[in-house]
């Protein structure tokens, strides 16, 4: 049974902070070595090329220094030896919620996943610790040839497809954390949408960390073939512990000519989770990749969803919001590389910091010399709710072709007493008034989310504003 009382004491307002008792069927000792990496691969009965790829990535991870930018002092606090790199709590990935172990099922029930699945999703994968515990896709999509599997099954059933694309967008030497992910990855989604198929309703992945000092390293690969489209939504939560957990995912997207991929995230980790994620997509001719990225929780998030505009006429959009509360640092942004002519991109970043929280926008947009007539638009807005909080902006544009049209706007604002007074004079308490301002500030983001998520995000922010008035 979840220990509610204790959970509440630890978590305060964080409403996804309960924990289940741990019933692991396989649990690795803390710490990482080549042996651990090989053990994970063996346990999963992987082909040899994957084992060797993992080992190579591990060696790169060990050699690669920590990034020398971002929140280096918090990064340096990560103790890689006190993290569990693999933990399995369920024997199998089930297709029926009734077959999922009761306690785990209860957790996903409380998070509303099965209910959402019935109402408005095309498919769901639910990952608990290292493995997917539930997975299902609507039959009609399966019949149209859509592949939606957890990554481990993907590798088993479509080894050639995986071999072709795995690490093709994010090479294992990309950065320290993508190397770590490549070494110890487990779970995540594997999606292939055939030519011309439009997946109308979103598919959702939900990632839950339950155990203490857990490392979750899911790996997601989405390939949208020519003229196809898909909307993938992910959510994540964890219990609040006083010790740290590490979430380090890699997501690779491939949009073939004319395809459209939208990838939406509402990250709501508890404030003991390091969230260090590499997300990148390659957009071929006339395709479109959109990252809709909401970062509400975690201790430190470093995440810069990226798009490589490789084919002519491709379009990239990164819309992100970040909320940093007490003890949190959201270091987030976007990277877009215009490699081909007539490519367009749009970045909208909104950040709110409160109670000493710290928000950083870090963005990079490049236009290569050969790319003619590109259009770039970058807008970043920060809202600071009190004197202790902080917001920094590092926008970088490297434009090597003079035909590019670049627009850039940045603003930092504070909530004014007059704005609050105006709303309060209409019958709204100070907290409600603040939530209205904050939700309004995030509105350009929430309107891009499926309605159910938008409502949830607004409620979440209202909760964050409670007790915030001194």
């Amino acid at each position, binding site marked *: 049974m979840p220990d509610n009382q204790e959970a509440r004491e630890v978590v305060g307002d964080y409403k996804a902070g309960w924990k289940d008792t741990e019933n692991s069927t396989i649990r690795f000792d803390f710490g990482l070595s080549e042996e651990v990496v090989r053990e994970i691969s063996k346990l999963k009965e992987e082909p040899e090329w994957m084992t060797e790829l993992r080992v190579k990535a591990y060696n790169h991870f060990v050699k690669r220094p920590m990034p020398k930018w971002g929140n280096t002092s918090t990064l340096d606090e990560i103790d890689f030896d006190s993290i569990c790199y693999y933990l399995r709590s369920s024997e199998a990935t089930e297709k029926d919620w009734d077959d999922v172990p009761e306690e785990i099922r209860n957790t996903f029930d409380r998070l509303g996943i099965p209910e959402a699945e019935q109402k408005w999703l095309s498919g769901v994968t639910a990952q608990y610790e290292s493995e997917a515990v539930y997975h299902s896709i609507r039959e009609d999509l399966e019949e149209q040839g859509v592949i939606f599997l957890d990554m481990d099954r993907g590798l088993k059933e479509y080894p050639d497809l995986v071999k072709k694309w795995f690490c093709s967008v994010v090479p294992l030497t990309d950065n320290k954390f993508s190397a770590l992910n490549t070494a110890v990855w487990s779970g995540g989604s594997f999606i292939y949408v055939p030519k011309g198929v439009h997946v109308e309703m979103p598919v959702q992945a939900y990632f839950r960390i339950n155990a203490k000092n857990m490392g979750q390293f899911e790996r997601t690969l989405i390939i949208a073939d020519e003229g196809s489209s898909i909307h993938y939504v992910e959510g994540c939560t964890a219990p609040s512990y006083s010790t740290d957990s590490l979430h380090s995912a890699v997501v690779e997207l491939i949009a073939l000519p004319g395809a459209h991929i939208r990838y939406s995230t509402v990250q709501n980790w508890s404030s003991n989770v390091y969230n260090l994620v590499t997300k990148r997509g390659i957009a071929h001719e006339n395709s479109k990749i959109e990252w809709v990225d909401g970062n509400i929780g975690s201790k430190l998030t470093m995440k810069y969803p990226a798009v490589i505009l490789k084919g002519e006429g491709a379009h990239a959009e990164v819309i992100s919001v970040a909320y940093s509360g007490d003890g949190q640092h959201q270091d987030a942004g976007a990277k877009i590389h215009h490699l081909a002519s007539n490519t367009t991109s749009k970045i909208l970043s909104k950040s709110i910091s409160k109670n000493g929280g710290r928000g950083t926008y870090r963005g990079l947009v490049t236009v290569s010399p050969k790319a003619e007539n590109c259009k770039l638009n970058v807008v970043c807005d920060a809202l600071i709710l009190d004197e202790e909080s902080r917001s920094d902006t590092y926008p970088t544009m490297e434009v090597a072709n003079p035909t590019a049209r670049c627009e850039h706007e940045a603003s930092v604002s504070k909530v*004014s*007493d*007059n*704005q609050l*007074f*105006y*709303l*309060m*004079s*209409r*019958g*709204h*308490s*100070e907290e*409600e008034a603040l939530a*209205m*301002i904050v*939700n*309004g*500030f*995030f*509105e*350009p983001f929430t309107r891009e989310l499926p309605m159910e998520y938008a409502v949830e995000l607004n409620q979440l922010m209202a909760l964050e504003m409670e007790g915030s008035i001194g």
Partner: protein
Amino acid sequence: MTAASGQAEALMEIVDLHVGIDDTSILKGIDLRILPGEVHAIMGRNGSGKTTAANVIMGHPDYEVEKGDVLLNGDSLLDEDPWERARRGVFLSFQYPQAVPGLQVGNFLRKSVASIRGEDAAKGANFRKELNEAMDQLKIPRSFLSRYVNDGFSGGEKKRFEILQMMLLKPKLAILDETDSGLDIDGIKTVASGVNAAVRGTDSGALIITHYSRILEHVKPDFIHVLIGGKIVASGGPELATQLEENGYDWVENMAAEGVA
């Protein structure tokens, strides 16, 4: 509350009100009694303290009440937060309404009505009908509902939106701070008829702050008060507005100095 003997009970009463901000005193002893069904007007030059008075009645946290009291239906408002005052029926049409980007007008109106008049009043077909009628009356197009509160509104749109809120929130005491400036004559007539409909023959009341007599021709206030330097220096009937228009504020100021008014 029962009325004091021989005297009707005041809807709102301001008693010897002294207000300062950052150690500067702005209002220096104001008295005002508004009875149910009455419309009062405060006139005065820029900087005389009109907005300060309105903000203090609504409960703006920046002002310090040094002395005196403000009562609604006999109970002091001063210890109450602005939203409590709003729920008790005080409404302020702002001289400078604030923009809230991302907050949709329709949503905001529904939430405000729910908060002040109760959830039921903000639900279903009745609310929609009420909303549509008020918008038609103010000549506000439906597309307005999906815009963001005061964000990019013209001066006239802001003022019309304030009156739309007044009509939907059904206050006991409506304070209109320079709602007429920024409106054309058509707008002024609409506002005036809105105020008349909300107040005349009801137990509500209104306080109209302005420095033009134009709106007063259409509302015909019961009393006009002239505020100069934080004090009410003259009070009278509607004729005072006309005299002011003709002779200017210097005239009242001189009269006040001579103790005539």
